[in-house]
C-alpha cells in the first residue's frame, strides 16, 4: 500500500516517456550530492531562488532611475552595487546598463549562446536563445526589432550589444511620456521584460483602459 504513495520525481511529466537527458540530469544531481559537492538543501534553495527571479527586479531599478537622477548615475556606474541599494541581488557577474535616449536605442543579444542579465530579469525567453535572433540581431537589428513591433526611426541610432559570460547588459528604457507624477511602483509596471532586453519600449500609459486608476489602487 505504501508503495502506491511513492511519486515519480517529476509528476507533471508522468504521462510522457522520460528522456535520456532527464535521466542524466537526475543521475548527475544525485552523484554530486553523494560527493557532497552540494547538499539537497542547497539544491532546493537554488531552485527556489531561480524561480523567484523575474523581470520585476530590473523593472524596480529602472523605475528608481527614472525618478532619481542620482540613482541613475550610480546604476550606470555599477549596476551590481545599485541593485544592493534596493536589496536586490545582481550576482557577481558584472552587468552594464545601457541607457536609451532620444538619439540612441540599445538592444542586447548573445550571438554565441544565451548570456543574459538573469539575476535581474530571470531566465531568458526561448527566442533570445534562438538561431534567428542570435544570428540576425547583429546584422539587421532594425528588421528584427520591427518583428517585435518596435519601429525605430531612422534618425535614432541602434546599438547592438553582444553579451558574454563575463559581461552582461541590461537596457534602461526611456520613461514613457505622460508619466510625470506617477508613483515608483506604478512606473515599475510599465517596464516589461522585453523593454529591458531592448526589443520593445517601456509600455505607454494607457489611460483609456483605466490602467492608471487600477494600478494606483493596488
Amino acid at each position, binding site marked *: 500500500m505504501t508503495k502506491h504513495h*511513492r511519486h515519480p520525481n517529476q509528476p507533471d511529466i508522468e504521462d510522457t516517456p522520460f528522456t535520456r537527458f532527464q535521466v542524466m540530469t537526475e*543521475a548527475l544531481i544525485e552523484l554530486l550530492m553523494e560527493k557532497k559537492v552540494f547538499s539537497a538543501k542547497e539544491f532546493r534553495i537554488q531552485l527556489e531562488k531561480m524561480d523567484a527571479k523575474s523581470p520585476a527586479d530590473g523593472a524596480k531599478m529602472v523605475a528608481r532611475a527614472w525618478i532619481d537622477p542620482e540613482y541613475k548615475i550610480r546604476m550606470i556606474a555599477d549596476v551590481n552595487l545599485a541593485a544592493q541599494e534596493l536589496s536586490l541581488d545582481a550576482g557577481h557577474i558584472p552587468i552594464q546598463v545601457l541607457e536609451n535616449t532620444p538619439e540612441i536605442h540599445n538592444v542586447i543579444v548573445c550571438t554565441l549562446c544565451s548570456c543574459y542579465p538573469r539575476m535581474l530579469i530571470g531566465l531568458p525567453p526561448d527566442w533570445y536563445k534562438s538561431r534567428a535572433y542570435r544570428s*540576425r540581431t547583429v546584422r539587421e537589428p532594425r528588421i528584427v526589432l520591427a518583428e517585435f513591433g518596435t519601429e525605430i526611426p531612422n534618425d535614432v541610432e541602434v546599438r547592438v550589444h553582444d553579451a558574454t559570460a563575463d559581461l552582461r547588459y541590461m537596457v534602461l528604457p526611456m520613461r514613457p511620456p505622460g508619466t510625470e507624477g506617477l508613483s515608483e511602483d506604478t512606473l515599475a509596471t510599465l517596464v516589461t521584460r522585453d523593454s529591458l532586453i531592448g526589443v520593445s519600449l517601456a509600455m505607454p500609459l494607457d489611460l483609456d483602459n483605466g490602467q492608471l486608476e487600477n494600478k494606483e489602487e493596488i
Partner: protein
Amino acid sequence: MVKHLRKPHDLGGLQDGQVDRSEHTHEPWEKRVDSIMRLVSDKKRLILTVDELRRGIEDLGPSVYDELSYYERWISSLTNVLIEKGVVTSDEVGHKMNDVEARWSADREIEP
C-alpha cells in the same frame, strides 16, 4: 586569406528566418539542469565556469548541437566537463543513470 571556419554556436551575422517569438514555460527538469550549473559555478564552489560550459557545448559537434534542445546541450556539456575534471567518472554516471531509469520505470509501473 584563410576562410574563417565557424563553430556551430557562432551565429552572429548569419542569415536566418523570422524570429519565432513563441515561448514555453521551463519544464521542471530544465530548471534542475540550470540549478546544477548555478551551484557548480557559484563563488563557493567554482568547479566550472560559464565559458567551460559553453566550450563543452561547442565540443558536442555540429550535428549534436542542432539536434539537442537548449538544456539537453547544457546537461550533456555539464556531465562531460565534470567527467573531464574528475569530479565524477563516466562509470559512475552510467551506473547512476541505470539506477535512476530503473527507479523511474518501477514508479511508472505501480501508477494506476
